[in-house]
């Protein structure tokens, strides 16, 4: 189908770099696991997921509903979880947030924070059940990881908002 021609007073379409910025930021957040440090227990929050949720909750129109698939695929390759873990769980989170969007239209940041905490907790607990055997003693550490991630989410959301401002300013 032919694209409609741009009128003299229409805004210029965003540049490629500007359109790719949210996805690139999520990929970079996933890549934090390559930081040279050998962890003896899981302490690092799932930063890729948190970045994705922050974008999704603050600007619903940026990511298509299928966006978690490629991003989750990449996260699986660097996170150490079995492949398909983030693809499935992140997409389920997006479906859930889509449903919440219909029910709870006017939201404050508190509600967004609660939704993000629920999503992160769901992804981490489901990921633990999938990846580690049931007898592993990781549950206390996992709880700690969820609390750290929930506490860190406002910071990630703030970073997202800053990136968004830069994105629209440029």
């Amino acid at each position: 189908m032919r694209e409609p021609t741009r009128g003299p007073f229409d805004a210029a379409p965003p540049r490629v770099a500007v359109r790719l910025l949210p996805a690139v930021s999520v990929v970079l957040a996933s890549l934090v696991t390559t930081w040279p440090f050998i962890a003896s227990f899981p302490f690092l929050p799932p930063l890729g997921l948190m970045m994705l949720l922050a974008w999704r909750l603050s600007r619903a129109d940026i990511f298509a509903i299928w966006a978690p698939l490629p991003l989750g695929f990449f996260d699986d390759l660097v996170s150490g979880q079995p492949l398909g873990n983030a693809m499935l769980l992140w997409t389920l989170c997006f479906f859930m947030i889509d449903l919440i969007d219909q029910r709870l239209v006017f939201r404050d940041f508190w509600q967004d924070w609660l939704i993000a905490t629920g999503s992160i907790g769901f992804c981490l607990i489901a990921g633990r059940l999938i990846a580690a055997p049931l007898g592993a003693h990781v549950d206390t550490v996992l709880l700690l990881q969820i609390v750290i991630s929930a506490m860190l989410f406002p910071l990630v959301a703030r970073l997202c908002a800053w990136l968004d401002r830069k994105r629209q300013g440029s």
Partner: protein
Amino acid sequence: MAPSRNRRPGFSRRAQYSQFLAYVLAVAGALIGAVLLALSTLDPPAFAALRSTVAVVTTPVSSGISAIGRGIAAIPASISDHFAVRQENAALRKELAANQAMLMRARTLSYDNRRLQALLRIRERTATPVIAARLVSSSASSTRRFAVLNAGSWYGVKPGQPVRGPDGLIGRVLETGPNTARVLLLSDPESIVPVRRTRDGLPALAAGRGDGLLDIRSASLANVGFEPGDVFVTSGIGGIYAPNIPVARVLKRARDTALARTFAQPDTLDFALVQQVFMPDVATAAAPAP
């Protein structure tokens, strides 16, 4: 906050169809994700090629950052070294003179030892090292305990080879790429190493717990007591790990299953030695028994 999105695409057929298609794509993708997940749970090394492709790019970056970190960490040490060298020199000279006599005695002992060993025809299998490399990153956000080694199949690293540090066993290689390898650490919930107690040779299994510690389970008798401070080394059973590599020390008094801490604390600052798979030859292993 304003309504986050106007969900209705309007009267445009094109917009309606594309939104519908996006949902179809997402559901199909989620199903594919589930299938991939099932595949990789049933056959963990299935997608090793994909992972190592990404690791080929990310590992040099991690190594670079790690090298910079090492360089910064080395600055205070080298400054103090510079000033300590003078006194150390004098001390070393004195020590050298004192050691001369001991060296002569050691030479005699070593000669005797060689002769006696030849007499007994003991054939030591030494675990030959493949390469010394560094662990550069780890799965810090996952409940599994993997680390990435910055050497791979180009240097002769193969899946199954044991990895040890200066202090003790670190783990074994799971997957290899051209310049990277993924190492299963001892503390991973799916890692099991056959060990024995140094004190009396009691056979046991060292299984990872996932929280950085190990469980030592007695492999032979029921009702075995573990004391704090009991040291466990690899037994060589199973043929992967060479015998007598230090593995763990028991933390608390317990029966049958004891909590233990590993000797090797994997660190990006230190070397990790990849060794050949140890396979004791049945004939030579049986020979020295009297």
